[in-house]
């Protein structure tokens, strides 16, 4: 009667246990290696100024990766994060322009921007979780829709952001660059969200929707919550894009969508849901930034840059997967 099929999962090494707790360890290793490589090719790239620039440029991708992670927690995906970021970008640019570009107008525009992101997230959540359309296709469709809206609001790229806005984003306070305050706020936000009921419930839904439903979880509401969170973080990413580029562009986010998915995977989260960390996604976004910097510093001819960049991301993914597999085997 003890026909218990004992699962050969016991006796795993300390490294395996460590990986279970911190699935982003391989990402950290890759990050350090890339930093060293960057330093070798261009010692200047490790200076405080260069690193500040790196964070300033890739803050948007970090936030998009975080946005994507919450959706992936629940085994969903959002291919519209980039389009949401574009839409928010042009919305706040046009609003700030209309309201005169003063401090108050910036705050008002940012408030509206967050609401726009939230609304987009709710739309995604509604079509995917309530209407039960396939997430990958449904959010691809909404991405086209959001891009269309962005093009209506600002048909051509180029309307400038108010000086106050990008000066703040690029500036320093008490000797510390503004982006590092952003990083600190993000850290606090992520810490709080990791302790939220929603995060745990999203992971439970991603682990097994049927089991979560049978446990009495409001599965549809939870998935919509994940998309809403994703929309808000995409809006925050749009603020960083706006600060970095100092202008409006209705297509600025499109190319970042799949980078955000890549960052989620690189950061150790499972695309099949139920397992992952936002910290990993943030680190992975930096890895992608460092790869781009490295390609540049290594003096790759411009027509080879995409080729090398793609190979480097593939290599990083492989290293990450191999390390995790070794640890889990």
């Amino acid at each position: 009667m003890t026909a218990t099929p004992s699962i050969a999962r016991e006796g795993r090494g300390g490294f395996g246990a460590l990986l279970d707790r911190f699935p982003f360890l391989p990402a950290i290793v890759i990050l350090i290696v890339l930093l060293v490589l960057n330093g070798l090719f261009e010692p200047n790239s490790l200076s405080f100024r260069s690193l500040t620039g790196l964070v300033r440029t890739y803050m948007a991708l970090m936030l998009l990766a975080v946005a994507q992670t919450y959706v992936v927690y629940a085994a969903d995906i959002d291919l519209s994060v980039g389009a949401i970021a574009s839409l928010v970008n042009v919305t706040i640019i046009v609003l700030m322009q209309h309201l005169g570009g003063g401090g108050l107008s910036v705050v008002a525009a940012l408030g509206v921007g967050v609401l726009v992101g939230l609304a987009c997230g709710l739309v995604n959540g509604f079509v995917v979780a309530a209407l039960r359309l396939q997430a990958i296709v449904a959010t691809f469709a909404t991405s086209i829709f959001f891009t269309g809206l962005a093009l209506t609001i600002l048909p051509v790229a180029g309307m400038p952001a108010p000086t106050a806005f990008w000066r703040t984003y690029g500036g320093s306070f008490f000797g510390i660059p503004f982006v590092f305050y952003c990083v600190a706020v993000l850290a606090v936000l992520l810490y709080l969200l990791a302790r939220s009921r929603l995060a745990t419930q999203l992971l439970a839904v991603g682990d097994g929707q049927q089991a979560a439903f049978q446990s009495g979880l409001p599965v549809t509401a939870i998935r919509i919550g994940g998309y809403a969170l994703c929309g808000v973080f995409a809006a925050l990413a749009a603020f960083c894009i706006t600060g970095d580029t100092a202008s409006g562009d209705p297509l600025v986010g499109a190319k970042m969508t799949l980078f955000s998915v890549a960052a989620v995977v690189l950061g150790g989260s499972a695309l099949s849901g139920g397992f992952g960390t936002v910290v990993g996604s943030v680190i992975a976004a930096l890895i992608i930034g460092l790869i781009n910097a490295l390609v540049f510093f290594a003096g790759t001819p411009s027509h080879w840059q995409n080729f090398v960049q793609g190979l480097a991301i593939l290599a990083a993914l492989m290293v990450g997967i191999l390390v995790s597999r070794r640890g889990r085997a």
Partner: protein
Amino acid sequence: MTKLKLSGVSKAYGATMALRHGDLEIEAGEVHVLIGANGSGKSTLCKIVAGSVRPDRGTVLIDDRPVTVSGPRAAKALGIGIFYQELSLAEHRSVAENILMPDLPRKGRLFVNREALAETAGRYIALFAQVAGEDLTADTPVGRLRADQRQLVEIMKALASKAPVLIFDEPTSALDRAQVDRFFEILRGLRNEGRSIVFISHRMDEIFAIGDRVTVIRDGETIGTTTIADTSPAAVIRMMVGEQEGLAVPQDAPPASATGGGTALSVAHLSGQGFSDVSFTVARGEILGLGGLHGQGQSALLRALFGAPPAHSGAVTLAGAALRTENPRSAITSGLAYVSGDRGRDGVITGRPILENVTPVHALRNRLMLASPGRLAAGALPALKALNTKFAGLSHPISSLSGGNQQKIVIARWLIDRPDVLLLDDPTKGIDLSAKADLFALIRKLAEDGLAIILYSSEDAELLNNADRILVFNGGSVRRELAGAERTRYNLYHAAYEAA
């Protein structure tokens, strides 16, 4: 006082009636046992109470008030907690999170109260501390636990619901004796608190150890309820068998070939995942039945013989020569055939034409590199004809056929080149009656032609009507062999339920 009352509840999935007419009355402060054979509707009845299945008809009363259990959340609000047979755990979440997942303790509106989580979950873990094993701690991800530990976590999760009505659908199938004893102690405590407990188990000794009353379900209908003290295991089995004894006698005596064909396959002390130390022989021309409750090792054994995955130890001899199957490919080339009831997963090549679905085994066995549709069709047609398969043309996609005809195509695959041994793993699952009759007529004919056939069926009537001998499985090993006149429903249930 009646706590929970179901009357005239029914549920159909498409054409199959999972539950015809379910009645159940549970008092406050009792352990009420539900018992019935495979597919009799016990789990469906429980899921209706738990809200994860909506009934087509019938009423549910709690405290004499009619209620609609619209979903698991509604059930929770009505004070119903359930242990799911297939478990409802999130593998990557910790034990503590899983135990309290239905109602995570909160801090403010948005946050999880980690301290309360650890403390409350700790109380439930402590209940089983002596028997659960040291590695079951609040922080362990459930994915790292053994099967018995997961079952304990699901039990804790049900207990943590603190519901007045608790349903346990086969909660003890992976537990060892000490764990079951501890669980029963806790159940008795809950009963004495006045809670109502519904308990499903296939172990007669457990039922008589913990139950106050027992309700028997047969073929989706409630047969009756009696007090445990007034009944006996044999009487309960008789209620489960009912008046169907007549069905059990085969239409005709087993053909002579069943005995005189010589040994085709012999298995000695075979062990693998899900079964252990199984020995038997099958003769040419014989249909050997594997019986017993679901998941007692029958399917696992058949899959192991076919190399998916291979057995861990033991010896298999095919026609006098030792057989070593590494994978299905080697099993096929040495003359084994396997048909699964799970057509979608193991049989049908979805979206491809009928011809391509009939010929892959032929192609493998003859190492065909180039295929000529005309020659393949010439081989495929007689096999399809032998099975009475209805189809419009060989080039039509297999999905255009009914379930029964799809299964015939899958079987025809093995008939172009005759195998020596045919392994049938619950082959008639979800197939209509006339297709079933066709299938069994063919299986008997194949046996008469000299094939050795091993048949596992979850429908007892199919086994009793078609198998020449039946091996009754329980807990991964053979408990009894029924041959000749012994092949009765009563004997089958007796061996399947009491052996534990």
